[in-house]
């Protein structure tokens, strides 16, 4: 395998990220349209998308805000959706942990589903590559994703302001959840977790501050992990 320079690695990353842009752009538009339609200002909508950069968690937060949930619950539930990114951080650390702290903070900011998946796949295929090449590849994937995410968020926020408020698009939020869920049901363990999440959330729906949702999440997490372990042993 020919060795890469940081420059070629950057462009490899850009090329590998290209197919993902088709999903990221419209996803950012849908969030921004719905957020503005639900009453967030242009600045708040853009702030949401550019400071948080986590589509699923943003939709979770937006839905709970539509329901006027307590601020603490909105934040806790949305952060729970993002907990998986601790795993991403742990997977990148052996490869990028030697960078100066400022550069690690930059990587952390753009450590999203797509940049993580592409970068870890490359690092595991080519563990011998120097740090500078690995870093360049990460930003090769992150740069187009950031540009498309930001541009689409602005477009969506502008478009959302033009939609008359009486045209309710509220049910688009649950539809987005089901679309996300359909992408996640890859194994029997994921199915088990999803079913437990639904059942516990419905049973505990009347708990104050939507605490039932957090308990459902905890129960479903354990269920997924236990189901994975059980199937791993059987295999």
């Amino acid at each position, binding site marked *: 395998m020919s060795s890469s320079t940081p420059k070629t690695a950057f462009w490899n990353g850009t090329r590998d990220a290209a197919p993902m842009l088709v999903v990221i752009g419209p996803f950012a538009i849908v969030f921004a349209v719905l957020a503005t339609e639900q009453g967030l200002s242009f600045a708040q909508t853009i702030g949401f998308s550019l400071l948080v950069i986590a589509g699923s968690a943003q939709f979770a937060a937006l839905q709970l805000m539509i329901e006027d949930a307590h601020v603490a619950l909105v934040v806790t539930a949305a952060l729970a959706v993002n907990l998986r990114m601790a795993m991403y951080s742990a997977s990148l*650390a052996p490869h990028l942990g030697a960078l100066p702290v400022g550069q690690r903070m930059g990587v952390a900011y753009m450590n999203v589903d797509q940049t993580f998946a592409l970068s870890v796949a490359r690092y595991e295929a080519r563990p011998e590559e120097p740090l500078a090449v690995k870093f360049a590849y990460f930003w090769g994937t992150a740069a187009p994703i950031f540009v498309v995410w930001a541009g689409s968020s602005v477009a969506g926020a502008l478009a959302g302001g033009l939609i008359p408020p009486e045209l309710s698009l509220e049910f688009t939020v649950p539809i987005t959840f089901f679309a996300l869920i359909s992408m996640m049901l890859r194994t029997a363990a994921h199915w088990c977790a999803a079913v437990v999440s639904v059942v516990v959330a419905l049973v505990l729906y009347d708990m104050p501050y939507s605490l039932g949702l957090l308990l459902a999440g905890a129960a479903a997490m354990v269920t997924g992990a236990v189901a994975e372990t059980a199937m791993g042993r059987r295999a």
Partner: protein
Amino acid sequence: MSYSTAEIWLVIGLLAAGTFAIRFSFLGLIGDRDLPPVVLRLLRYTPVAILPGLAMPLVLAAPESAGWTADPLRLGAAAATLMAGWLTKNMLAAIGAGAFVFYGLGAVFGL
């Protein structure tokens, strides 16, 4: 939604800080020590543990009362979304299918 401007910015700020802390965690502070496998296993299921529990009550909640209801339009839209996503592995196709059922068929049949 009835939050003040300050409360909305509080949500955004806390979410931004918390999400960054999660993303930075091992890269920044904990270094390259390995996570115990049981922790990795739990983390793998966090999105699929929260989102279904958040989504399903939105389909079943009765609009004007405290109970549950089986509204065929909302159930149909949710099922179409799941089915399309599962078959095509394409998120936009899934959202399109659900929106078509809810807004398209809903308007045609006046549901």
